[in-house]
């Protein structure tokens, strides 16, 4: 494949990666209200158990688990927000750096056509190499950050399962709690809904991350070919 084709392919790949990062950012941002709702749910659960007095003892044990679940989801969401910010920045840096890399390539192409020019191509090759190094570094950092994000999001599926289990237990407890069962069931139902949303969002994020990881792999192959082709 010629350098021009690699260049075009790479530009498209960087654009794709940037777009995917922005989509992932949007999707992850939807988790923020979910964390707040989990917190609210924990408070509701504690209040319901308190109102039930000694008859709410069994439910109180469940509220502690619901609280812990809410905390785990909130921590996970906070960490992902920070790392996705870095990912979008790195993807945007890569697109910008690549544009500079292409400009230097164009310049060196012009210079190579001249015979007896006064400036050695080495002068501008230095600039091109600085950019190539930055590209490699940003690429490595982006791959690493995507790996971190995958690790951060991996417990979400497990948390969702735990949430489903807690919702079932809460419903069972609601059925056995007479007059207080209504408020326990309200907590169980809210928990089921939040867990459903968490599971759906988690599935969408996993799909986006899978696409992003594939795009990164493709782009890294193309970059290797482009940077080492000459």
């Amino acid at each position, binding site marked *: 494949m010629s350098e021009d084709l690699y260049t075009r392919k790479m530009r498209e790949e960087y654009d794709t990666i940037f777009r995917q990062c922005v989509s992932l950012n949007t999707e992850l941002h939807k988790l923020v209200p979910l964390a707040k709702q989990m917190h609210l749910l924990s408070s509701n659960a504690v209040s319901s158990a308190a109102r039930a007095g000694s008859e709410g003892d069994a439910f109180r044990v469940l509220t502690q688990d619901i609280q812990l679940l809410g905390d785990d989801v909130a921590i996970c969401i906070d960490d992902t927000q920070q790392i996705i910010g870095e990912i979008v920045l790195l993807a945007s840096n890569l697109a910008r750096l690549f544009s500079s890399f292409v400009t230097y390539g164009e*310049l060196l192409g012009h210079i190579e056509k001249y015979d007896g020019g*006064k400036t050695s191509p080495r*002068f501008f090759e230095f600039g091109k190499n600085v950019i190539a190094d930055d590209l490699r570094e940003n690429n490595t950092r982006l791959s690493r950050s995507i790996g971190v994000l995958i690790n951060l999001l991996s417990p979400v599926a497990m948390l969702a399962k735990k949430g489903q289990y807690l919702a079932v237990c809460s419903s069972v407890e609601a059925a056995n709690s007479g007059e207080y069962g209504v408020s326990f069931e309200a907590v169980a139902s809210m928990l089921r809904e939040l867990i459903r949303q968490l599971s759906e969002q988690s599935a969408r994020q996993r799909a986006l991350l899978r696409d992003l990881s594939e795009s990164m792999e493709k782009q890294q192959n193309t970059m290797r070919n482009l940077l080492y082709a000459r």
Partner: protein
Amino acid sequence: MRVEDLYKKNAHSWMVMGRDPDRREEVIDTNQYLIQNNGRGLLLDPGGVENFAVVAAEFSKHFDLANVEAIFASHQDPDVISSLSFWIQANPKLIVYVPKIWVSFISHFGVSAENMRPIPDEGGVITLGGHDLEVIPQHYLHSSGCLSLYDPEAKIFFSGDIGAALLPDDYTDLFVTDFDEHTQYMEYFHRRWMPSNSAKMRWIAEVRKRDVEMLCPQHGAIFKGDDVGRFLSWFENLNVGTGWSEVR
């Protein structure tokens, strides 16, 4: 792309490059200047990202750009200086002279403070290979922080956007050939882009104090000999800051 020597004597010279026939239609044509003295180079308004490859390639034929030690930016516009990061990537020690008030803005072009040499509002002197070049205030013409550069040996006055003309594509001359004819290309530009008559009069007085054989704008054609005086008189009589009514 046209490249011509404007002045050449001993180890001192001026070169201009402009009229890029391959530029995209929507990109304004720019003149880039290279001053050389004792083997050292100073680029004046080296242009935007858009034409960096062409400008650098053309000047490369005539001068070892590794010896360009500094860049002078008359003001902050992208067509003047957005290529800066490319020049600095190739030569991290490059010095960039900029109007002081624009330092924090020009930093957005990816330039660090170590490279920049802010020039105060009152102007100053730039020394290139032992030769002094005068920096003269040109504020509000058109930018609020704007500088001209005068070379007393070559008698060349670099005027940034003053004297600029929006030329048709078939105008390939680097110099003004018929001043009266040429005013049609300059009038709207100066009425629209130059906001202050009082700043204009101050600047004209500064130019008239000096012996100027060529007045070199960043766009359009260069004024030579008597056309320098003709331009100053024309500009003096033009009511600037009045182009807006035509665009409403």
